[in-house]
């Protein structure tokens, strides 16, 4: 085979008039895309190694760099796209599964972008969030079916355990190991500052982050890494991870090369050994087994923590959710197919699962049809990009959303989708100390808090426009939504009317 059978996707363009040969880009690029040619006394680039993470572009002191998508192309063919051809060549070369990271990038419909919001005109007033109270506080958890009174006739305050959030957004599971310590610390501190929750993911919890316990959801996944009783009791809630939107039906794999130092300690596995999370929980082969795990965790923590069960949005998600709602779980988290990941087989990421908008709408409806919607809260995740997505998800029926990718972007991620290489130039999806150092948690957490505050303001603005001053009045309020360019069936599943109706 020829030496350069596959042409690189991106080209590094250097303005040689500006370049001062300072070699910053060379130092900054963990992929080795920049090389200094000593004999010629100038910089050169290896486009093959570039992942388009923009680290060099951002660090070059004289703006000498830009990355462009190559215009080199295969003979145009709408069916046999360049991507398909390249992937086949790559697999013919390696004989392996294609790996990828972050969420599904393909051109499936984005329902959030085909839904529009309402605003008040004439018949009822909009409310100005700058002048009037606008409540975004959310409580997640199960609600009793019936008010009970004591012998004196006073209401018994027997509210099951709840998570209290200042706004309907939480930071979704990202494990210490898949992301760096500095990234984890940024998430934890941002959650604490913003009055919301972050999620440990399946990698356990670093000792130093125990102090953010009030804002921590501790996850129990199929590998059970880092799970012990102090870990469970330290969180505000416990999440059982049954599935993940980016890779429904398969487990996880953190290569031994990343199991070093504190990560090995936190995960409670020997240094250098691969951390393999099996596809299923081997103690959960059915719904009644799930219920046992829910109650074991409740027992283990003396019934002081609400239990979240997280599932990937798959075809019969409504029936599964209804089973979970009866299993003793307090909260169901549904993760749509756009959900991010540190590493997933590309075919799974791109072809398995369904959009969160449809999954959420049908779960909310099913639970209501069965009269059990009050028994669980619903958290929707997988591709939430903005406050408008949040508002739409809540109007479709979610109590709250999970954000992952958006949070990482606030911390500096440039969506190069190369997390699986472990060489994140922004210090997020890497364990290389020199790279991790690039993310300063003091700075990172503030950026994330800024993002959350900005979204909160926007959410309040949109609520006010609809004449709503408490977030619970938006929940499941589908009359506030209209579809554009959707067919009858899609509208029916979303439970919304078409614009103009």
């Amino acid at each position: 085979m020829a030496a350069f059978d596959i042409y690189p996707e991106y080209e590094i363009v250097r303005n040689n008039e500006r370049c001062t040969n300072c070699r910053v880009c060379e130092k900054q690029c963990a992929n080795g895309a920049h090389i200094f040619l000593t004999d010629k006394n100038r910089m050169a680039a290896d486009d093959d190694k570039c992942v388009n993470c923009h680290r060099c572009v951002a660090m070059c002191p004289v703006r000498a760099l830009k990355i462009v998508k190559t215009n080199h192309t295969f003979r145009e063919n709408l069916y046999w796209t360049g991507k398909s051809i390249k992937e086949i060549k790559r697999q013919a070369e390696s004989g392996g599964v294609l790996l990828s990271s972050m969420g599904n990038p393909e051109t499936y419909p984005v329902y959030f972008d085909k839904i529009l919001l309402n605003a008040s005109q004439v018949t009822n007033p909009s409310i100005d969030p700058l002048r009037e109270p606008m409540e975004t506080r959310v409580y997640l958890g199960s609600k009793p079916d019936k008010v009970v009174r004591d012998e004196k006739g006073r209401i018994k305050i027997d509210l099951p355990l709840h998570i209290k959030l200042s706004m309907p957004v939480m930071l979704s599971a990202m494990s210490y190991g898949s992301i760096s310590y500095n990234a984890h610390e940024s998430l934890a501190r941002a959650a604490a500052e913003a009055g919301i929750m972050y999620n440990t993911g399946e990698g356990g919890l670093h000792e130093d982050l125990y102090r953010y316990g009030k804002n921590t959801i501790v996850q129990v996944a199929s590998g059970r890494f880092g799970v012990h009783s102090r870990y469970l009791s330290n969180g505000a809630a416990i999440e059982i991870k049954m599935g993940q939107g980016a890779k429904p039906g398969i487990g996880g794999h953190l290569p031994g090369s990343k199991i070093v130092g504190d990560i090995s300690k936190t995960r409670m596995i020997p240094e250098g050994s691969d951390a393999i999370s099996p596809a299923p929980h081997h103690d959960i082969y059915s719904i009644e087994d799930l219920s046992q795990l829910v109650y074991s965790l409740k027992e283990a923590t003396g019934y002081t923590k609400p239990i979240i069960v997280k599932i990937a949005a798959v075809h019969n998600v409504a029936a599964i959710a209804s089973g979970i709602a009866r299993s003793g779980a307090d909260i169901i988290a549904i993760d749509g197919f756009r959900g991010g990941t540190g590493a997933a087989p590309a075919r799974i990421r791109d072809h398995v699962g369904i959009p969160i908008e449809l999954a959420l709408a049908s779960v909310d409806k099913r639970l209501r049809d069965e009269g059990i919607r009050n028994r669980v809260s619903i958290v929707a995740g997988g591709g939430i990009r903005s406050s408008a997505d949040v508002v739409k998800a809540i109007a479709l029926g979610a109590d709250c959303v999970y954000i992952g990718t958006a949070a990482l972007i606030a911390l500096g991620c440039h969506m190069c989708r190369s997390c699986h290489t472990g060489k994140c130039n922004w210090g997020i999806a890497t364990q290389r100390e020199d790279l991790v150092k690039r993310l300063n948690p003091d700075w990172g957490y503030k950026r994330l808090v800024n993002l959350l505050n900005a979204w909160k303001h926007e959410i309040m603005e949109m609520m006010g426009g609809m004449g709503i001053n408490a977030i619970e009045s938006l929940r499941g309020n589908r009359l506030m939504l209209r579809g554009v360019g959707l067919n009858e069936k899609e509208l029916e599943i979303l439970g919304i009317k078409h614009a103009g109706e």
Partner: protein
Amino acid sequence: MREGMFRNPSGCAISGIFSKSGKRFSGRQIIESIAVMHERSNGLGGGFAAYGIYPEFKDHYAFHIFYDDIYAKRECEEFLEDHFDIVSFSQIPTRKLPEIKDTPLIWRYFLAPLPAKLADSQQDEGEYVIRCVFRINTGIKGAYVFSSGKNMGVFKAVGFPEDVGRFYRLEEYEGYCFTAHGRYPTNTPGWWGGAHPFALLDFSVVHNGEISSYDANRRTIEMYGYKCTLQTDTEVITYIIDYLHRKQGLDLKEICSVIAAPFWSVIATRPQKEREELEYLRCVFDTLLINGPFSIIVGFEGGMMALNDRLKLRSMVVGEKDDMVYVASEEAAIRVIQKDLDRVWSPKGGEGVIVTLEKGSA
């Protein structure tokens, strides 16, 4: 934000009169009161609820029913006979008026559930009656039960409220409480059944406003077996009150803390016991919070309640004179029937004004 700070061209009118001593008075006053607010209605619906008007049948459910034709009537009466002992029935007396057109057949029945049927149903009496009402309203085409309480009745039609009052000869009834509504529909087309008050058993609601939480409220209450067929705010508010009162056993003050829940910032300032209770109610019934502008008057056996949304986005005034309590969208509607008031005030948003019959009164 208070009424008047923003442009608000939608307007319904509501009015209520209550005698705490239980003294019965004629329906003439309520017609005069609601007539003052003529321009707040647009002739597409008006109605009244009257309490204490059927003392001779006070232990029987009084059904008021609209029929489109005699076939609907026949089918409905068969259903009634199957489920109730019909103690008395008659056409509701009306007066022919040029202003009131397209009159349906309007009949009244005094009913007692058949004991065997009731026992079979394994429901309490209230639930049994409500299920029957739902079955008629959704199952029998052209029949619509618009009043189903004891010793009370709803009278409503398409038209201006003062004409509706004259049409039903309301001045010939005597009761201890009357409420009234003049409608300016923006949501649903004017239809006799869609006029207000909306009532379920002895609870009746008149409402002014357009709530922004409608679909959240509707989808919640439908989960508990109610069917919102009219798609009006009043219907969903009535169901919420019925659910909280009859199924959850909340008293009216607690109901106010759910449907017009105080802001979290206000709850935080309350003494511990009260705070816990308010937090609990707000958490458990969060999607029954009614958001957006409303003022409502709720009539029920032995009492009346007036309530504004928590921002008070709709006007509502309360007046008192001796044992009489008056509530109306505008003070003028009170002054026209009682110039000399002991006290008149504008209740705060979310603050329910609840009046009940004094002990020992009728």
